[in-house]
Protein backbone atom coordinates (compact mmCIF):
# COMPACT_ATOMS: atom_id res chain seq x y z
CA UNK A 1 0.00 0.00 0.00
CA UNK A 2 2.81 2.35 0.86
CA UNK A 3 4.33 1.51 -2.47
CA UNK A 4 1.22 2.78 -4.16
CA UNK A 5 1.41 6.10 -2.41
CA UNK A 6 4.99 6.48 -3.49
CA UNK A 7 4.61 5.55 -7.13
CA UNK A 8 1.18 7.02 -7.77
CA UNK A 9 2.33 10.66 -7.70
CA UNK A 10 5.12 9.80 -10.08
CA UNK A 11 2.76 8.05 -12.51
CA UNK A 12 0.38 10.97 -12.28
CA UNK A 13 3.17 13.44 -12.96
CA UNK A 14 4.32 11.37 -15.89
CA UNK A 15 0.79 11.36 -17.29
CA UNK A 16 0.64 15.13 -17.03
CA UNK A 17 3.99 15.44 -18.76
CA UNK A 18 2.76 13.17 -21.54
CA UNK A 19 -0.34 15.15 -22.44
CA UNK A 20 0.93 18.59 -21.55
CA UNK A 21 2.28 19.64 -24.99
CA UNK A 22 -1.12 19.23 -26.51
CA UNK A 23 -2.50 22.02 -24.36
CA UNK A 24 0.41 24.33 -23.90
CA UNK A 25 2.15 26.86 -26.09
CA UNK A 26 5.41 26.06 -27.80
CA UNK A 27 7.21 28.30 -25.35
CA UNK A 28 6.14 26.17 -22.41
CA UNK A 29 6.82 22.95 -24.25
CA UNK A 30 10.38 24.08 -24.78
CA UNK A 31 10.61 25.28 -21.20
CA UNK A 32 9.59 21.93 -19.78
CA UNK A 33 11.93 20.20 -22.21
CA UNK A 34 14.76 22.38 -20.91
CA UNK A 35 13.74 21.46 -17.38
CA UNK A 36 13.84 17.76 -18.15
CA UNK A 37 17.29 18.17 -19.67
CA UNK A 38 18.35 19.93 -16.50
CA UNK A 39 16.89 17.01 -14.56
CA UNK A 40 19.09 14.53 -16.43
CA UNK A 41 22.08 16.79 -15.85
CA UNK A 42 21.25 17.01 -12.14
CA UNK A 43 20.65 13.28 -11.74
CA UNK A 44 24.09 12.65 -13.18
CA UNK A 45 25.65 15.02 -10.66
CA UNK A 46 23.63 13.47 -7.85
CA UNK A 47 25.38 10.18 -8.57
CA UNK A 48 28.59 11.88 -7.56
CA UNK A 49 27.47 14.23 -4.82
CA UNK A 50 24.58 12.40 -3.21
CA UNK A 51 25.66 8.80 -3.54
CA UNK A 52 29.46 8.74 -3.74
CA UNK A 53 30.23 11.85 -1.74
CA UNK A 54 32.18 13.56 -4.53
CA UNK A 55 31.37 17.24 -4.62
CA UNK A 56 32.23 18.17 -8.17
CA UNK A 57 32.15 21.84 -9.04
CA UNK A 58 33.11 21.27 -12.65
CA UNK A 59 30.35 19.05 -13.93
CA UNK A 60 29.35 21.55 -16.60
CA UNK A 61 32.51 20.63 -18.51
CA UNK A 62 31.00 17.35 -19.74
CA UNK A 63 27.68 19.02 -20.48
CA UNK A 64 29.44 21.49 -22.75
CA UNK A 65 31.94 19.11 -24.31
CA UNK A 66 29.18 16.87 -25.63
CA UNK A 67 27.33 19.88 -27.02
CA UNK A 68 30.44 21.12 -28.80
CA UNK A 69 31.09 17.62 -30.09
CA UNK A 70 27.70 17.65 -31.78
CA UNK A 71 28.37 21.01 -33.37
CA UNK A 72 31.88 20.12 -34.49
CA UNK A 73 31.08 16.66 -35.79
CA UNK A 74 28.15 17.71 -37.95
CA UNK A 75 29.47 19.78 -40.82
CA UNK A 76 27.16 21.64 -43.16
CA UNK A 77 25.69 19.77 -46.06
CA UNK A 78 26.02 16.32 -44.58
CA UNK A 79 23.13 14.27 -43.35
CA UNK A 80 23.90 13.35 -39.77
CA UNK A 81 22.08 10.46 -38.28
CA UNK A 82 21.37 10.57 -34.61
CA UNK A 83 22.46 6.98 -34.36
CA UNK A 84 26.09 8.00 -34.47
CA UNK A 85 25.92 11.65 -33.39
CA UNK A 86 24.38 10.89 -30.03
CA UNK A 87 26.80 8.11 -29.08
CA UNK A 88 29.73 10.11 -30.38
CA UNK A 89 28.94 13.16 -28.29
CA UNK A 90 28.22 11.12 -25.17
CA UNK A 91 31.45 9.23 -25.75
CA UNK A 92 33.35 12.51 -26.03
CA UNK A 93 31.99 13.60 -22.66
CA UNK A 94 32.74 10.20 -21.14
CA UNK A 95 36.32 10.26 -22.38
CA UNK A 96 36.84 13.73 -21.00
CA UNK A 97 35.44 12.59 -17.65
CA UNK A 98 37.71 9.56 -17.68
CA UNK A 99 40.84 11.58 -18.36
CA UNK A 100 39.99 14.37 -15.95
CA UNK A 101 38.85 11.82 -13.39
CA UNK A 102 42.26 10.18 -13.37
CA UNK A 103 43.69 13.50 -12.23
CA UNK A 104 41.06 14.87 -9.90
CA UNK A 105 40.25 11.64 -8.09
CA UNK A 106 43.77 11.64 -6.71
CA UNK A 107 42.58 14.42 -4.44
CA UNK A 108 40.02 14.56 -1.69
CA UNK A 109 37.83 17.02 0.14
CA UNK A 110 38.49 20.68 -0.51
CA UNK A 111 41.19 19.90 -3.05
CA UNK A 112 38.77 17.84 -5.08
CA UNK A 113 36.24 20.64 -5.27
CA UNK A 114 38.90 23.07 -6.36
CA UNK A 115 40.51 20.92 -9.02
CA UNK A 116 37.21 19.92 -10.58
CA UNK A 117 36.47 23.61 -10.89
CA UNK A 118 39.89 24.29 -12.34
CA UNK A 119 39.66 21.58 -14.99
CA UNK A 120 36.22 22.82 -16.02
CA UNK A 121 37.73 26.27 -16.42
CA UNK A 122 40.42 24.77 -18.59
CA UNK A 123 37.77 23.31 -20.85
CA UNK A 124 35.95 26.64 -20.82
CA UNK A 125 39.04 28.46 -22.00
CA UNK A 126 39.69 25.85 -24.63
CA UNK A 127 36.40 26.72 -26.30
CA UNK A 128 36.35 30.40 -25.40
CA UNK A 129 39.84 31.47 -26.43
CA UNK A 130 40.76 29.20 -29.28
CA UNK A 131 39.37 28.86 -32.79
CA UNK A 132 38.31 25.34 -32.03
CA UNK A 133 34.81 26.30 -31.01
CA UNK A 134 34.05 29.57 -32.66
CA UNK A 135 35.32 31.54 -29.71
CA UNK A 136 33.13 33.37 -27.27
CA UNK A 137 30.22 33.47 -29.69
CA UNK A 138 29.86 29.73 -29.88
CA UNK A 139 28.59 27.73 -32.81
CA UNK A 140 25.24 27.34 -34.46
CA UNK A 141 24.26 23.84 -35.43
CA UNK A 142 24.25 23.49 -39.18
CA UNK A 143 21.50 21.00 -39.06
CA UNK A 144 19.94 18.91 -36.39
CA UNK A 145 20.59 15.19 -36.46
CA UNK A 146 18.08 13.12 -38.36
CA UNK A 147 16.13 10.35 -36.74
CA UNK A 148 15.35 7.75 -39.35
CA UNK A 149 14.36 4.15 -38.79
CA UNK A 150 14.63 1.84 -41.79
CA UNK A 151 14.74 4.82 -44.11
CA UNK A 152 11.62 6.47 -42.71
CA UNK A 153 11.86 9.60 -40.66
CA UNK A 154 10.69 8.73 -37.15
CA UNK A 155 11.15 12.11 -35.53
CA UNK A 156 11.93 15.58 -36.71
CA UNK A 157 14.26 17.32 -34.34
CA UNK A 158 13.25 20.63 -35.88
CA UNK A 159 9.86 20.17 -34.30
CA UNK A 160 9.78 21.27 -30.65
CA UNK A 161 7.04 18.81 -29.76
CA UNK A 162 9.04 15.91 -31.17
CA UNK A 163 12.07 17.04 -29.24
CA UNK A 164 9.96 17.27 -26.13
CA UNK A 165 8.82 13.66 -26.33
CA UNK A 166 12.30 12.52 -27.20
CA UNK A 167 13.67 14.29 -24.12
CA UNK A 168 10.88 12.94 -21.94
CA UNK A 169 11.54 9.40 -23.08
CA UNK A 170 15.23 9.76 -22.36
CA UNK A 171 14.59 11.30 -18.95
CA UNK A 172 12.42 8.38 -17.92
CA UNK A 173 14.97 5.93 -19.32
CA UNK A 174 17.84 7.54 -17.45
CA UNK A 175 15.82 7.57 -14.25
CA UNK A 176 14.94 3.88 -14.51
CA UNK A 177 18.47 2.96 -15.49
CA UNK A 178 19.96 4.77 -12.52
CA UNK A 179 17.38 3.39 -10.16
CA UNK A 180 18.42 -0.10 -11.23
CA UNK A 181 22.12 0.71 -10.97
CA UNK A 182 21.82 2.11 -7.48
CA UNK A 183 20.03 -0.98 -6.24
CA UNK A 184 22.87 -3.24 -7.29
CA UNK A 185 25.93 -3.97 -5.19
CA UNK A 186 27.73 -1.36 -7.26
CA UNK A 187 25.34 1.24 -5.93
CA UNK A 188 25.86 0.08 -2.37
CA UNK A 189 29.60 0.22 -2.86
CA UNK A 190 29.27 3.85 -3.88
CA UNK A 191 27.21 4.65 -0.81
CA UNK A 192 29.76 2.76 1.25
CA UNK A 193 32.49 4.93 -0.19
CA UNK A 194 30.57 8.03 0.78
CA UNK A 195 29.87 6.68 4.23
CA UNK A 196 33.33 5.43 5.12
CA UNK A 197 35.89 5.27 2.35
CA UNK A 198 38.68 4.22 4.69
CA UNK A 199 36.78 1.13 5.73
CA UNK A 200 35.97 0.27 2.14
CA UNK A 201 39.66 0.27 1.34
CA UNK A 202 40.39 -1.81 4.44
CA UNK A 203 37.83 -4.33 3.24
CA UNK A 204 39.54 -4.76 -0.07
CA UNK A 205 37.78 -2.33 -2.41
CA UNK A 206 39.88 -0.32 -4.80
CA UNK A 207 37.86 2.80 -4.21
CA UNK A 208 39.75 4.78 -6.86
CA UNK A 209 38.46 2.44 -9.55
CA UNK A 210 34.88 2.75 -8.38
CA UNK A 211 35.08 6.50 -8.11
CA UNK A 212 36.56 6.71 -11.57
CA UNK A 213 33.82 4.48 -12.93
CA UNK A 214 31.00 6.56 -11.50
CA UNK A 215 32.76 9.78 -12.46
CA UNK A 216 32.87 8.60 -16.05
CA UNK A 217 29.26 7.43 -16.01
CA UNK A 218 28.16 10.74 -14.53
CA UNK A 219 30.17 12.57 -17.18
CA UNK A 220 28.56 10.51 -19.92
CA UNK A 221 25.08 11.29 -18.66
CA UNK A 222 25.92 14.97 -18.36
CA UNK A 223 27.02 14.65 -21.96
CA UNK A 224 23.66 13.19 -22.87
CA UNK A 225 22.04 16.24 -21.33
CA UNK A 226 24.41 18.44 -23.30
CA UNK A 227 23.50 16.66 -26.52
CA UNK A 228 19.83 17.23 -25.87
CA UNK A 229 20.41 20.86 -24.98
CA UNK A 230 22.22 21.69 -28.21
CA UNK A 231 19.61 19.81 -30.22
CA UNK A 232 16.87 21.77 -28.49
CA UNK A 233 18.38 25.23 -28.78
CA UNK A 234 20.32 24.79 -32.00
CA UNK A 235 23.51 26.39 -30.74
CA UNK A 236 26.30 25.96 -28.23
CA UNK A 237 28.31 28.62 -26.41
CA UNK A 238 31.19 28.47 -23.94
CA UNK A 239 28.69 29.52 -21.26
CA UNK A 240 27.57 25.92 -21.17
CA UNK A 241 30.88 25.13 -19.50
CA UNK A 242 30.98 28.19 -17.27
CA UNK A 243 31.23 27.63 -13.58
CA UNK A 244 27.89 29.34 -13.10
CA UNK A 245 26.49 26.35 -14.91
CA UNK A 246 28.30 24.00 -12.53
CA UNK A 247 27.06 26.02 -9.58
CA UNK A 248 23.48 26.04 -10.78
CA UNK A 249 23.29 22.31 -11.31
CA UNK A 250 24.79 21.76 -7.87
CA UNK A 251 22.11 23.98 -6.43
CA UNK A 252 19.45 22.00 -8.28
CA UNK A 253 20.72 18.81 -6.68
CA UNK A 254 20.57 20.38 -3.22
CA UNK A 255 17.13 21.85 -3.78
CA UNK A 256 15.70 18.48 -4.56
CA UNK A 257 17.23 16.86 -1.53
CA UNK A 258 20.31 14.72 -1.52
CA UNK A 259 19.91 11.02 -1.08
CA UNK A 260 17.08 10.40 -3.50
CA UNK A 261 17.01 9.94 -7.24
CA UNK A 262 13.77 11.81 -7.85
CA UNK A 263 15.16 14.73 -5.88
CA UNK A 264 17.20 16.22 -8.74
CA UNK A 265 14.13 16.05 -10.96
CA UNK A 266 12.09 17.95 -8.41
CA UNK A 267 14.96 20.31 -7.91
CA UNK A 268 15.12 21.02 -11.63
CA UNK A 269 11.47 21.97 -11.76
CA UNK A 270 11.82 24.07 -8.64
CA UNK A 271 14.88 25.86 -9.99
CA UNK A 272 13.36 26.65 -13.38
CA UNK A 273 10.12 27.78 -11.79
CA UNK A 274 12.10 30.04 -9.51
CA UNK A 275 14.13 31.43 -12.35
CA UNK A 276 11.04 32.18 -14.44
CA UNK A 277 9.30 33.70 -11.46
CA UNK A 278 12.22 35.84 -10.41
CA UNK A 279 13.09 36.93 -13.92
CA UNK A 280 9.51 37.87 -14.54
CA UNK A 281 9.13 39.93 -11.40
CA UNK A 282 12.48 41.34 -10.60
CA UNK A 283 15.05 42.91 -12.84
CA UNK A 284 17.86 41.75 -10.60
CA UNK A 285 16.99 38.08 -10.47
CA UNK A 286 20.59 37.07 -9.84
CA UNK A 287 20.37 38.90 -6.54
CA UNK A 288 17.22 37.01 -5.69
CA UNK A 289 18.91 33.75 -6.66
CA UNK A 290 21.95 34.53 -4.54
CA UNK A 291 19.91 35.42 -1.48
CA UNK A 292 17.79 32.34 -2.03
CA UNK A 293 20.85 30.11 -2.15
CA UNK A 294 22.14 31.62 1.08
CA UNK A 295 18.79 31.16 2.78
CA UNK A 296 18.60 27.54 1.63
CA UNK A 297 21.90 26.83 3.33
CA UNK A 298 20.86 28.58 6.53
CA UNK A 299 17.55 26.77 6.52
CA UNK A 300 18.75 23.21 5.95
CA UNK A 301 17.66 21.49 9.14
CA UNK A 302 20.61 19.98 10.86
CA UNK A 303 22.59 20.94 7.83
CA UNK A 304 23.56 18.31 5.36
CA UNK A 305 24.49 16.07 8.25
CA UNK A 306 20.82 15.24 8.42
CA UNK A 307 21.22 13.51 5.09
CA UNK A 308 22.31 10.16 6.55
CA UNK A 309 18.87 9.89 8.09
CA UNK A 310 17.40 9.95 4.63
CA UNK A 311 19.87 7.46 3.31
CA UNK A 312 19.07 5.22 6.23
CA UNK A 313 15.39 5.20 5.43
CA UNK A 314 16.12 4.46 1.82
CA UNK A 315 18.41 1.57 2.51
CA UNK A 316 16.28 -0.08 5.15
CA UNK A 317 13.45 -0.23 2.64
CA UNK A 318 15.68 -2.17 0.33
CA UNK A 319 17.12 0.64 -1.67
CA UNK A 320 15.68 2.96 -4.27
CA UNK A 321 12.15 4.20 -4.48
Amino acid at each position, binding site marked *: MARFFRTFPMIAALAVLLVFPMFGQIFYTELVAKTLILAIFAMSLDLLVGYTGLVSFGHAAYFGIAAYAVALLTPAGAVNAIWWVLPASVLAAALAALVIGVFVLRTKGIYFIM*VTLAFAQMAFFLFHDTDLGGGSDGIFLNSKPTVTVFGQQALSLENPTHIYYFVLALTVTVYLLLRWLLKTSFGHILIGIRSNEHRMVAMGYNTFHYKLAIFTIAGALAGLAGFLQVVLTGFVTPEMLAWHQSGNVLLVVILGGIGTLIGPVLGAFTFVALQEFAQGLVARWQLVMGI*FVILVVFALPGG*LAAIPARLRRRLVKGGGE
Partner: protein
Amino acid sequence: MDIVSLLIQTLNAVQYGLVLFLVASGLTLIFGIMRIINLAHGSFYMIGAYMAFGLSSGITETLPAMIAVGLILSFFIGFVLEWAFYAFLYQREHLEQVLLTYGLILVFEELRSILFGNDVLGVPVPEALAGSIPLTDTLSYPVYLIFISVACLIMAGLLYYLIRHTRLGMMIRAGSHDRNMVQALGINIDLLFRIVFAIGFMLAAFSGMISAPMTSVSPGMGNQVLIISFVVVVIGGIGSVGGAMVAAMVIAFADVFGKLLVPAYAGMFVYLVMALVLLWRPEGIFRKG
Protein backbone atom coordinates in the same frame (compact mmCIF):
# COMPACT_ATOMS: atom_id res chain seq x y z
CA MET B 1 64.26 37.80 -27.30
CA ASP B 2 66.77 40.28 -26.02
CA ILE B 3 67.79 40.86 -22.45
CA VAL B 4 65.67 43.94 -21.90
CA SER B 5 62.47 42.33 -23.10
CA LEU B 6 63.28 39.31 -20.98
CA LEU B 7 63.77 41.59 -18.02
CA ILE B 8 60.45 43.27 -18.63
CA GLN B 9 58.61 39.98 -18.86
CA THR B 10 60.35 38.73 -15.74
CA LEU B 11 59.35 41.85 -13.86
CA ASN B 12 55.78 41.36 -15.06
CA ALA B 13 55.81 37.78 -13.89
CA VAL B 14 57.20 38.71 -10.50
CA GLN B 15 54.59 41.40 -10.06
CA TYR B 16 51.75 39.11 -11.10
CA GLY B 17 53.11 36.41 -8.86
CA LEU B 18 53.24 38.68 -5.85
CA VAL B 19 49.68 39.86 -6.33
CA LEU B 20 48.56 36.27 -6.76
CA PHE B 21 50.46 35.34 -3.66
CA LEU B 22 48.65 37.90 -1.54
CA VAL B 23 45.25 36.77 -2.74
CA ALA B 24 46.15 33.10 -2.41
CA SER B 25 47.69 33.50 1.02
CA GLY B 26 44.40 34.88 2.29
CA LEU B 27 42.62 31.94 0.75
CA THR B 28 45.01 29.39 2.18
CA LEU B 29 44.77 30.94 5.63
CA ILE B 30 41.00 30.65 5.55
CA PHE B 31 41.21 27.09 4.25
CA GLY B 32 44.02 25.93 6.39
CA ILE B 33 43.02 27.46 9.66
CA MET B 34 39.28 27.66 9.47
CA ARG B 35 38.73 24.75 7.10
CA ILE B 36 36.27 26.74 5.06
CA ILE B 37 36.17 26.63 1.29
CA ASN B 38 35.49 30.18 0.24
CA LEU B 39 34.37 30.64 -3.34
CA ALA B 40 33.71 34.32 -2.70
CA HIS B 41 37.40 35.10 -2.28
CA GLY B 42 37.59 36.44 -5.81
CA SER B 43 34.76 38.78 -4.95
CA PHE B 44 36.90 40.13 -2.12
CA TYR B 45 39.54 41.04 -4.69
CA MET B 46 36.86 42.73 -6.74
CA ILE B 47 35.56 44.61 -3.71
CA GLY B 48 39.05 45.95 -3.15
CA ALA B 49 39.27 47.16 -6.74
CA TYR B 50 35.93 48.93 -6.55
CA MET B 51 36.98 50.37 -3.23
CA ALA B 52 39.98 51.88 -4.97
CA PHE B 53 37.67 53.37 -7.55
CA GLY B 54 35.44 54.81 -4.86
CA LEU B 55 38.33 56.20 -2.83
CA SER B 56 40.09 57.71 -5.80
CA SER B 57 36.97 59.55 -6.87
CA GLY B 58 37.62 62.28 -4.43
CA ILE B 59 37.07 60.90 -0.97
CA THR B 60 40.73 60.88 -0.20
CA GLU B 61 43.53 62.43 -2.16
CA THR B 62 46.88 61.09 -1.11
CA LEU B 63 48.00 57.57 -1.76
CA PRO B 64 48.99 56.70 1.81
CA ALA B 65 45.61 57.93 3.03
CA MET B 66 43.83 55.86 0.40
CA ILE B 67 45.74 52.75 1.36
CA ALA B 68 45.18 53.30 5.05
CA VAL B 69 41.45 53.88 4.64
CA GLY B 70 41.22 50.92 2.30
CA LEU B 71 42.95 48.59 4.73
CA ILE B 72 40.87 49.66 7.70
CA LEU B 73 37.66 49.46 5.71
CA SER B 74 38.45 46.00 4.37
CA PHE B 75 39.39 44.67 7.77
CA PHE B 76 36.10 45.91 9.10
CA ILE B 77 34.07 44.49 6.21
CA GLY B 78 35.83 41.13 6.55
CA PHE B 79 35.15 41.11 10.27
CA VAL B 80 31.44 41.73 9.78
CA LEU B 81 31.17 39.21 6.93
CA GLU B 82 32.64 36.48 9.07
CA TRP B 83 30.26 37.22 11.89
CA ALA B 84 27.24 37.28 9.56
CA PHE B 85 27.91 34.37 7.26
CA TYR B 86 31.12 32.46 7.71
CA ALA B 87 30.88 31.69 11.41
CA PHE B 88 27.88 29.60 10.44
CA LEU B 89 30.02 27.45 8.18
CA TYR B 90 32.41 25.99 10.74
CA GLN B 91 32.24 22.25 10.99
CA ARG B 92 29.70 22.23 8.20
CA GLU B 93 29.95 20.02 5.17
CA HIS B 94 31.93 21.26 2.21
CA LEU B 95 28.82 21.25 0.10
CA GLU B 96 27.13 23.81 2.31
CA GLN B 97 30.21 26.00 2.28
CA VAL B 98 30.38 25.83 -1.49
CA LEU B 99 26.75 26.77 -1.86
CA LEU B 100 26.69 29.59 0.64
CA THR B 101 29.82 31.24 -0.69
CA TYR B 102 28.53 30.75 -4.23
CA GLY B 103 25.37 32.58 -3.21
CA LEU B 104 27.55 35.35 -1.81
CA ILE B 105 29.29 35.70 -5.15
CA LEU B 106 25.95 36.28 -6.84
CA VAL B 107 24.94 38.83 -4.22
CA PHE B 108 28.24 40.70 -4.45
CA GLU B 109 28.00 40.80 -8.23
CA GLU B 110 24.56 42.30 -8.07
CA LEU B 111 25.48 44.80 -5.38
CA ARG B 112 28.38 45.88 -7.52
CA SER B 113 26.04 46.29 -10.45
CA ILE B 114 23.64 48.35 -8.38
CA LEU B 115 26.30 50.59 -6.87
CA PHE B 116 28.71 51.00 -9.73
CA GLY B 117 26.91 49.86 -12.86
CA ASN B 118 28.24 47.43 -15.43
CA ASP B 119 30.73 49.59 -17.27
CA VAL B 120 34.43 49.09 -17.18
CA LEU B 121 35.87 51.70 -14.88
CA GLY B 122 39.30 53.21 -14.65
CA VAL B 123 41.31 54.11 -11.60
CA PRO B 124 44.02 56.68 -12.19
CA VAL B 125 47.59 55.93 -11.27
CA PRO B 126 48.67 58.23 -8.43
CA GLU B 127 50.73 61.10 -9.77
CA ALA B 128 53.83 60.40 -7.76
CA LEU B 129 54.04 56.96 -9.27
CA ALA B 130 52.94 57.74 -12.78
CA GLY B 131 56.36 57.81 -14.39
CA SER B 132 58.43 55.17 -16.12
CA ILE B 133 61.97 54.00 -15.71
CA PRO B 134 63.74 54.02 -19.04
CA LEU B 135 65.52 50.77 -19.81
CA THR B 136 66.60 51.37 -23.37
CA ASP B 137 66.04 54.04 -25.98
CA THR B 138 62.60 52.70 -26.71
CA LEU B 139 61.57 50.60 -23.74
CA SER B 140 60.72 51.71 -20.25
CA TYR B 141 59.06 50.12 -17.28
CA PRO B 142 56.21 51.80 -15.41
CA VAL B 143 57.09 52.86 -11.90
CA TYR B 144 53.66 51.87 -10.69
CA LEU B 145 54.20 48.22 -11.54
CA ILE B 146 57.33 48.24 -9.43
CA PHE B 147 55.34 49.89 -6.69
CA ILE B 148 52.83 47.06 -6.79
CA SER B 149 55.59 44.50 -6.36
CA VAL B 150 57.14 46.45 -3.51
CA ALA B 151 53.80 46.96 -1.79
CA CYS B 152 53.03 43.24 -2.04
CA LEU B 153 56.45 42.34 -0.69
CA ILE B 154 55.94 44.64 2.27
CA MET B 155 52.54 43.08 2.93
CA ALA B 156 54.03 39.62 2.63
CA GLY B 157 56.74 40.58 5.08
CA LEU B 158 54.20 41.92 7.54
CA LEU B 159 52.18 38.73 7.21
CA TYR B 160 55.25 36.63 7.84
CA TYR B 161 56.18 38.68 10.86
CA LEU B 162 52.65 38.46 12.20
CA ILE B 163 52.46 34.70 11.90
CA ARG B 164 55.96 33.86 13.04
CA HIS B 165 56.79 36.45 15.63
CA THR B 166 53.68 37.65 17.35
CA ARG B 167 51.41 36.18 19.97
CA LEU B 168 48.48 36.53 17.63
CA GLY B 169 50.36 34.53 15.04
CA MET B 170 51.12 31.87 17.58
CA MET B 171 47.48 31.64 18.54
CA ILE B 172 46.53 31.38 14.88
CA ARG B 173 48.97 28.56 14.32
CA ALA B 174 47.82 26.79 17.47
CA GLY B 175 44.17 27.28 16.59
CA SER B 176 44.72 25.62 13.24
CA HIS B 177 46.00 22.49 14.90
CA ASP B 178 43.66 22.17 17.82
CA ARG B 179 40.71 24.45 18.12
CA ASN B 180 39.40 23.00 21.34
CA MET B 181 42.71 23.20 23.10
CA VAL B 182 43.09 26.84 22.28
CA GLN B 183 39.59 27.48 23.54
CA ALA B 184 40.37 25.60 26.74
CA LEU B 185 43.29 27.92 27.27
CA GLY B 186 40.84 30.75 27.57
CA ILE B 187 41.45 32.25 24.16
CA ASN B 188 38.31 33.38 22.43
CA ILE B 189 38.53 31.19 19.36
CA ASP B 190 35.56 32.83 17.70
CA LEU B 191 37.22 36.19 17.89
CA LEU B 192 40.49 34.72 16.74
CA PHE B 193 38.94 33.19 13.66
CA ARG B 194 37.09 36.39 12.95
CA ILE B 195 40.40 38.23 12.95
CA VAL B 196 42.01 35.62 10.73
CA PHE B 197 39.18 35.90 8.27
CA ALA B 198 39.35 39.68 8.31
CA ILE B 199 43.06 39.44 7.55
CA GLY B 200 42.35 37.10 4.66
CA PHE B 201 39.73 39.48 3.32
CA MET B 202 42.06 42.39 3.75
CA LEU B 203 44.84 40.68 1.80
CA ALA B 204 42.56 39.96 -1.13
CA ALA B 205 41.01 43.41 -1.10
CA PHE B 206 44.41 45.06 -0.84
CA SER B 207 45.59 43.16 -3.91
CA GLY B 208 42.55 44.32 -5.81
CA MET B 209 43.03 47.86 -4.59
CA ILE B 210 46.59 48.37 -5.65
CA SER B 211 46.19 46.45 -8.89
CA ALA B 212 43.17 48.50 -9.90
CA PRO B 213 45.00 51.31 -11.72
CA MET B 214 46.72 48.72 -13.83
CA THR B 215 43.97 46.24 -14.60
CA SER B 216 40.60 47.69 -15.37
CA VAL B 217 37.81 47.58 -12.84
CA SER B 218 35.12 45.49 -14.45
CA PRO B 219 32.33 43.03 -13.76
CA GLY B 220 33.47 39.47 -13.31
CA MET B 221 37.04 40.45 -12.55
CA GLY B 222 36.98 38.43 -9.38
CA ASN B 223 36.15 35.13 -11.02
CA GLN B 224 39.34 34.51 -12.87
CA VAL B 225 41.44 35.58 -9.90
CA LEU B 226 39.53 33.14 -7.75
CA ILE B 227 40.16 30.14 -9.93
CA ILE B 228 43.83 30.92 -10.33
CA SER B 229 44.18 31.38 -6.58
CA PHE B 230 42.61 27.99 -6.13
CA VAL B 231 45.22 26.56 -8.45
CA VAL B 232 47.94 28.29 -6.46
CA VAL B 233 46.60 26.85 -3.21
CA VAL B 234 46.29 23.38 -4.69
CA ILE B 235 49.85 23.45 -5.97
CA GLY B 236 51.29 25.06 -2.89
CA GLY B 237 49.38 22.99 -0.39
CA ILE B 238 46.52 24.04 1.83
CA GLY B 239 47.62 26.02 4.84
CA SER B 240 51.11 26.65 3.61
CA VAL B 241 51.82 30.33 3.10
CA GLY B 242 55.34 29.54 1.95
CA GLY B 243 53.93 27.07 -0.51
CA ALA B 244 51.57 29.73 -1.78
CA MET B 245 54.54 31.97 -2.57
CA VAL B 246 56.37 29.28 -4.51
CA ALA B 247 53.23 28.22 -6.34
CA ALA B 248 52.21 31.78 -7.13
CA MET B 249 55.58 32.40 -8.76
CA VAL B 250 55.40 29.16 -10.72
CA ILE B 251 51.94 30.05 -11.97
CA ALA B 252 52.85 33.64 -12.76
CA PHE B 253 55.89 32.68 -14.79
CA ALA B 254 53.99 29.88 -16.52
CA ASP B 255 51.25 32.31 -17.42
CA VAL B 256 53.42 35.21 -18.61
CA PHE B 257 55.85 33.13 -20.61
CA GLY B 258 53.08 30.82 -21.73
CA LYS B 259 51.36 33.78 -23.32
CA LEU B 260 54.57 34.55 -25.17
CA LEU B 261 55.26 31.08 -26.40
CA VAL B 262 51.78 29.68 -27.09
CA PRO B 263 49.39 32.65 -27.08
CA ALA B 264 46.30 30.77 -28.18
CA TYR B 265 46.60 28.19 -25.45
CA ALA B 266 47.94 30.47 -22.75
CA GLY B 267 44.70 30.30 -20.78
CA MET B 268 45.05 26.57 -20.48
CA PHE B 269 48.73 26.51 -19.71
CA VAL B 270 48.26 27.18 -16.03
CA TYR B 271 45.90 24.24 -15.64
CA LEU B 272 48.34 21.98 -17.40
CA VAL B 273 50.91 22.85 -14.79
CA MET B 274 48.37 22.08 -12.10
CA ALA B 275 47.59 18.73 -13.71
CA LEU B 276 51.26 17.81 -13.73
CA VAL B 277 51.67 18.75 -10.09
CA LEU B 278 48.62 16.68 -9.22
CA LEU B 279 50.15 13.68 -10.86
CA TRP B 280 53.27 14.09 -8.80
CA ARG B 281 51.93 15.32 -5.47
CA PRO B 282 48.15 15.19 -4.99
CA GLU B 283 48.32 17.12 -1.75
CA GLY B 284 50.31 20.04 -2.97
CA ILE B 285 54.03 20.58 -2.82
CA PHE B 286 54.16 21.89 0.71
CA ARG B 287 51.17 20.23 2.24
CA LYS B 288 50.77 20.96 5.92
CA GLY B 289 48.93 18.55 8.21
